[in-house]
């Protein structure tokens, strides 16, 4: 099987990797590039644990082929903090104890950031529907929703 060479911008950096034709972007990120922050919870687009942003659009990386990343920009959880400065969403997830096991957390953070990028002042209902593609089995979502609302507020205040 011949591998395909892919050149993409990942978290702002020009990156190239080899992958097989049927290999998902999720597998390429995890197995080829060591970016294991995105998780495989289902592999079928139902859990959101593998969420990444591809050219500004939130996608399930388990439903995208690695080869499709050619020439495009990919943002993953690993690129969310600026150096040692956490993104407000990351900080609020910690402050609100919005994670128990934490396996869903990278997906939620990436999805929540995409949500707030589009809608900086979501209502509780908008947050709930905006994150309905992400499954969490531990928290019952209460603290996650609160953390996202709080992060939105602090981002609006420019804090």
């Amino acid at each position: 099987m011949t591998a395909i060479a892919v050149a993409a911008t990942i978290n702002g950096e020009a990156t190239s990797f080899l992958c097989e034709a049927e290999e998902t972007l999720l597998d390429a990120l995890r197995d080829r590039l060591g970016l294991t922050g995105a998780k495989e919870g289902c592999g079928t687009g139902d859990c959101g644990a593998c969420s990444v942003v591809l050219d500004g659009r939130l996608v399930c990386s388990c439903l995208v082929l690695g080869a499709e990343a050619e020439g495009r920009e990919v943002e993953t959880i690993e690129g969310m903090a600026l150096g040692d400065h956490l993104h407000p969403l990351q900080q609020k997830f910690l402050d609100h104890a919005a994670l128990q096991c934490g396996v869903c957390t990278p997906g939620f953070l990436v999805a929540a950031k995409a949500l707030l990028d589009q809608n900086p002042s979501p209502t509780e209902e908008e947050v709930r529907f905006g994150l309905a593609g992400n499954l969490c089995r531990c928290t019952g979502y209460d603290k996650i929703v609160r953390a996202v609302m709080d992060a939105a507020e602090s981002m609006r205040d420019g804090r």
Partner: protein
Amino acid sequence: MTNSETGLKERQFKIVGTRPLRPDGIDKVTGRARFGADMAAPGMLVGKILRSPHAHARIRSIDATKALVLPGVKAVVTHEDFAEVGADLQDVLENVMAQDKALYDGHAVAAVAAISAGVARKALRLIEVDYEILPHVTDVEAAMAAEAPVLHDDIVTSGVEPAPKTPSNVVHRHEFGHGDVAEGLAQADVVIEHDFKTAATHQGYIEPHACVGSVGPDGQGELWCCTQGHFWVRNTCAALLGMDVSHLRVTASEIGGGFGGKTTVFIDPVALALSRKAGRPVKIVMSREEVFRASGPTSSTAMTVKIGVRRDGRITAGEAVLKFQGGAFAGSPVDLGAMTAFACYDLEHVKTVAYDVVTNRPKQAAYRAPGAPMAAFAVESVIDELASKIGMDPIELRLKNAVENGSQSSYGPKFGPVGLVETLVAAREHEHYTAPLGANQGRGIASGFWFNFGGQTCVSLNINADGSVALAVGTPDIGGSRASMGQMAAEELGIGYDKVRTIVADTASLGYNDISEGSRVTFSTGLATIQAARDAIGKLCGRAAQTWGISPDAVVWEDGYARPAGANAGEFPPLSLAEIAETAAKTGGPIAGHCEVNAAGAGVSFATHLVDAEVDPETGRAKILRYTVVQDAGKAIHPSYVEGQYQGGAVQGVGWALNEEYIYGEDGRLQNPSFLDYRIPVASDLPMIDTVIVEVPNPGHPYGVRGVGETSIVPPLAAIANAVSAAAGVRLTELPMSPPRVLRGIDEAAANGKA
């Protein structure tokens, strides 16, 4: 109840009860935390498992010749590659790899290790298994019928007289209780009896099982895996592979949820067996489909409950017959269901009968308070109906019968200080209880009980020369427990929380620790942490005494300082932990505290849940509008994580009550092994989940801690059923209360002229 009544001395806590950030937090919000599937080893192969497509089949032969010649395939294993094990592990082994029969759709029959996932998948298709298909049964009551296909020739029902002579799917019949139910029922003014059914549900952790196993040519093995109990995994894998326990070191990865489902082994022994054969590390990661088909769901059940009550609200007798199928092997949690069914009530006459049944389904694994939620669903539904029959407020009825300190439990022993009454009173006083309801809306309430466990625990607490502390525990952290342990250590030592770093140590670094199950971690590991801290304090005081040249008895530890006990002891400026640590090398070497204990005294806990639901009479769809959890935590070490346990349990209950269900086809195959078709609650299905933490201290723990992780899933099935039944105007007795089922209930009630 005050602390002094329970024998705990009043104590002002500095760190316990606050909400510090967790030590693993940053790693988990930045993607750095390494879960089961995030490990890689040099030269690692990919392992994949071939699974039976048949619900029940004899395996005549397995031929891997073609797979083995495929380039890139390094090893194939079947049951022949595992050791002989004792009776206690026989079922575990047979579930890991089928022997002469495949017992359910998804049962592992062989496995391969290859250089890539693609090659491994291809190799699986080349393994030829000759199956003789047998008749199957997946329903609990059908499996109990005389003509049902029998799974195991060696299961003969125990607990019935005269002892049967022929094999059956009924493993046992057990009876629990006391008094004379017939006599009790005769005293009742109202008696209600109903049949109930619940579907099997899956723990639904978001992280599929994953591991990397490596066995070298010298027979030394290493395993990295996501588990609730790596010490148990080590012992079990060693037995299944015929290795010395000390030749296998297991490291627990971060774990992406377990809820009981990661208290056993599925893939770990397979990865090790493949690695031993291939001579290279092997990684196995289950797909979600495999998780559904072959890892532990809970039991599906059929239950009958009969309760009698007098007009004054006193329950005169309770009786339940519980039938739980636990999949292809003995051991459904039916006994626990039977023991907990009436545990909330102080009854003179109570009897529960438990049938453990095997069927052609995956072997059930523990799921949060195993057995209790289903039993509570049945009992609390009948209690609810009795309350409305005699025109009494449902909380009032429960309060009239609630167990308290000294009551005899339905499962035998007398209770010590317990908090059921406190949760009921708090629920009644909660503003939620009297808030107005609209059309097609109903309010439900239910209480629930869980034992909570202690168990074998070993921790080690090392004082570093700079005064910081490394705490090594052996219980995987499934919900933030490292934070709570750090709090307890800091509290006891009198130092800052940020001075303590808690890690989960591997199996070579500590003595045996039981699995993180039974809500035991904050209780047992917390108890051991406190004792290890006290052990270290004794040594710190000893060093101070030496430094001052006084007797160790003349030194006390207060707020992080060693001080002379009194004026007679001498006048010395107090020495801080950091000061003593700094000179440790000169005063006798490293200072560490240890504790090895088989913790007993885990306090039982109770919860009461309040829920409002709305039913759409057109579609039958039920929606949860409001939810309040009231639960006794004994003492909440980190209230945020206690709330999180309450909320998570309630929401898993919402899924169980309304949507989640294992659906088997006529062919005995699981029809919905994906998150698309097995629908767990998402954010948009739910309201906020309010919590009230009641604290009735557990006298068995130095700080009063009770386990909190499991009780929260006991009341929701019943509370939601009571709410949905009230909203729909008809008693619903079958879970999940999916739209078609609710609609059928409404239609039938209308046809009967009730609605």
